[in-house]
């Protein structure tokens, strides 16, 4: 059998943990090979070993049957291995072209870089694979999906034959995911081989040929995708049965908790991104906001939470006008917020995870009295939350930075729910999490709803929106363009609405203006 890449019995240790314990993965030429495992199972580590960022303690790597030592990314590049990282490796102030040629620049006059030449070549590659990237745009000005294509272009520009994708779809919208799938198919058609890391079983079923499962650092085995099904994959990975369809009772909506009227919000460039938005969320219901990234969702959340000033309009929380109040006052009025960007907003990574558990409440009793902190109470609370929300951490004194993404997310969710806010805004609460963790978080959200709290869920995952919401508000171009009931709609209809086409009869199902 012909393998382009063989990773045999790889072992990689970090201080105090064996991230990869005797794992074997073999990649056939021209296949898309999935790598599946819980958060922290060791997938990224394994791929970083292949890409030369880490050196394994044991095991061997073969490329086209030949044993190799990949000591750094340069070696990997030369062996035709390219990687699209989980966290993009792009220099924000640089242009697309600069990012792509970085490290292997075409030379021009007087030792300068021949940017024109490079742009031409990039345009060619872009066209060949249907990537539609503007070579002269700045990274910071383009969407996340575009940035990912730049990452792909980077590997292709270097002549990669094997592409590693580390959770490429976690940050993409459904449209973008579909486009990525097409791109991957065309890559394989051109003779490339792909390793794909993803938590989304649907994607594995859709594009992958085979799938290697990792659990807690150990290789569980490799299965042929068309011989298996999502349930089997999930239980292989978690080691137990997983419930995909979230069980829930019908909602019993009560009084309006959040009322938004004719809201306008600008972004940093002073352009209106929320344009006259109206929305109500009631106690005891989960309202899901569906929409393509960039239609004003972030600005809407920031306006409600007080992180951004709104230009005009009114936001009422529990009949209290909270428009343009400070975040502290909004929080006090009964808001909880699971932020979309957990590293930027959700946590002080250098604080112990325990100290992070009181990020909004440190100034209140019993965590402090007359401005003096009471660590005993703080860490008592932290310990409780860590247990209740199954945050896996060595101790409550461990810096938040040291936790895996999934566990960081669980900590944030625990903290926000525990304050028992009347309105909980959950933005992309399960991004990048494994199915087990997703299941857990969905359960928690529904529990809150059942306690009579109002929940506003913002997500790019249509599955999540359909599964968890009691009501779906489709957001397009800064406005709510449709109100739907999950049971009465389907992904197709949602997709169309999100893309801006109108459907007769949409929006009459509920009392939203």
């Amino acid at each position, binding site marked *: 059998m012909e393998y382009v890449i063989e990773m045999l019995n790889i072992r990689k240790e970090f201080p105090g943990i064996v991230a990869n314990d005797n794992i074997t993965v073999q990649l056939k030429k021209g296949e898309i090979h999935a790598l599946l495992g819980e958060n922290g199972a060791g997938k990224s580590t394994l791929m*970083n070993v292949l*890409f030369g*960022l*880490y050196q394994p303690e044991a095991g061997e790597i073969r490329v086209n049957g030949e044993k190799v030592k990949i000591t*750094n*990314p*340069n070696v990997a*590049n030369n062996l035709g291995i390219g*990687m699209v*990282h989980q*966290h*993009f*490796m*792009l*220099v*924000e*102030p*640089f242009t697309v072209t*600069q*990012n792509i*040629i*970085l*490290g*292997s*620049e075409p*030379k021009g006059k*007087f*030792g*300068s*870089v021949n940017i024109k030449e490079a742009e031409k070549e990039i345009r060619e590659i872009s066209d060949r694979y249907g990537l539609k990237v503007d070579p002269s745009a700045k990274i910071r000005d383009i969407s996340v999906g575009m940035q990912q294509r730049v990452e792909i272009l*980077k590997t292709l520009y270097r002549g990669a034959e094997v592409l590693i994708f580390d959770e490429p779809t976690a940050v993409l919208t459904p449209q973008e995911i579909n486009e990525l799938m097409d791109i991957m198919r065309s890559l394989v058609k051109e003779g490339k081989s792909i390793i794909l890391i993803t938590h989304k079983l649907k994607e594995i079923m859709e594009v992958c040929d085979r799938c290697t499962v990792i659990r807690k650092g150990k290789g569980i085995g490799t299965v042929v995708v068309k011989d298996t099904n999502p349930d089997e994959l999930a239980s292989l990975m978690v080691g137990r049965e997983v419930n995909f369809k979230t069980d829930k009772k019908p909602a019993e909506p009560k009084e309006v908790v959040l009322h938004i009227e004719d809201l306008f919000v600008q972004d940093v460039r002073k352009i209106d991104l929320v344009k006259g938005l109206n929305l109500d969320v009631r106690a005891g219901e989960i309202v899901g906001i569906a929409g393509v990234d960039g239609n004003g969702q972030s600005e809407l959340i920031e306006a409600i939470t007080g992180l951004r000033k709104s230009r005009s309009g009114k936001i009422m929380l529990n009949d209290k006008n909270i428009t343009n109040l400070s975040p502290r006052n909004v929080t006090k009025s009964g808001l909880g917020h699971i932020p979309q960007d957990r590293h930027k907003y959700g946590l002080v990574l250098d604080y112990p995870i325990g100290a992070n558990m009181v990020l909004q409440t440190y100034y209140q009793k019993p965590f402090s009295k007359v401005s003096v902190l009471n660590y005993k109470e703080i860490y008592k609370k932290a310990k409780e939350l860590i247990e209740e929300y199954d945050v896996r951490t060595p101790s409550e004194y461990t810096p938040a930075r040291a936790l895996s993404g999934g566990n960081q997310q669980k900590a944030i969710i625990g903290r926000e729910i525990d304050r028992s806010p009347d309105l909980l805004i959950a933005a992309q609460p399960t991004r990048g999490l494994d199915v087990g963790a997703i299941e857990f978080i969905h359960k928690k959200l529904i529990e809150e709803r059942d306690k009579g709290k109002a929940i506003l869920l913002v997500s790019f995952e249509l599955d999540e929106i359909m599964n968890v919401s009691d009501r779906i508000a489709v957001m397009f171009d800064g406005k709510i363009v449709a109100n739907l009931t999950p049971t009465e709609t389907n992904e197709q209809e949602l997709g169309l609405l999100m893309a801006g086409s109108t459907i007769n009869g949409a929006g009459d199902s509920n009392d939203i203006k």
Partner: protein
Amino acid sequence: MLDILASIVPTVLFFSAPLIFTALGGVFSERSGVINIGLEGLMVIGAFVGIIFNLTFADVFGNFTPWISIIVATIVGALFSAIHAVASVSFRADQTVSGVAINMLALGVGVYLTKVWYGKGQTDMVAEPFNSTNIPILSDIPIIGPIFFEGIYITSYVAIIVAFIAWFVLYKTAFGLRLRAVGEHPMAADTNGINVYKMRYIAVLISGALGGLGGSVFALTIVSNFSHSTIVGQGFMSLAAVIFGKWHPLGAMGAALFFGFAQSLSVVSTGIPLLEDIPQIYLLIAPYVLTILALAGFIGRADAPRANGIPYVKGSR
């Protein structure tokens, strides 16, 4: 008005030139992600070497002495900054701490050696300093000629040319692209096969070279000897110029020229009728107040290179 310009431009240029060199050094270092508050110390070393070499070899090299002196100071500055590079790149030292240590070390070594070699705390005056000249041809241009090309130190023009070269290197060459990438997102650079450590070493050495050059030019155009008070704050002013100029070579040059202009103005204005009666104290603090106002008023927010100050540890996240 032209008179005032004609008298102010040369002073701006000689005052600013050392700051320009040193600030450019700071730009290279910080663009690669290594904070360099050791610029002051690098200038001290440059001044020390420039003067000592000049004193020692004036007889050997004659008219070329000042030029050879600044070249030697440039080389020694680069070597000296290797300490900062080793500490902050390889040993992952806090870069600010290392910079502070560079400042103390440079002054300590400079004065210590002066005392050991000369038996006193300050050297004699050099016999071969730089002298200002009229630039041939250019100084004959009407109006502009007398203002910009008469009585000018060539080193001042070298400073401006070096600023443009620095701009070209940083913004037009592969080396510059890599260097800036390393300062913004070292891991991205690393995954593209760029040796982050090597780039940072080179950048810090360049900053040492330019700092040494700046210090020696200061000593050989303005002071003429070396003592503990030869360089007092010029390095910090250069650091301010780096930030003022938003980490851009031409910006840093502009900022340094601005400082020179403000200083000259405060001296010249005692002779300008309108400004004559302003109490001395206002003129004294004017350059510093002006800088703050300029920053607050229209220069505004500037973002440092993203990875500035963060040691790169391979494989960390």
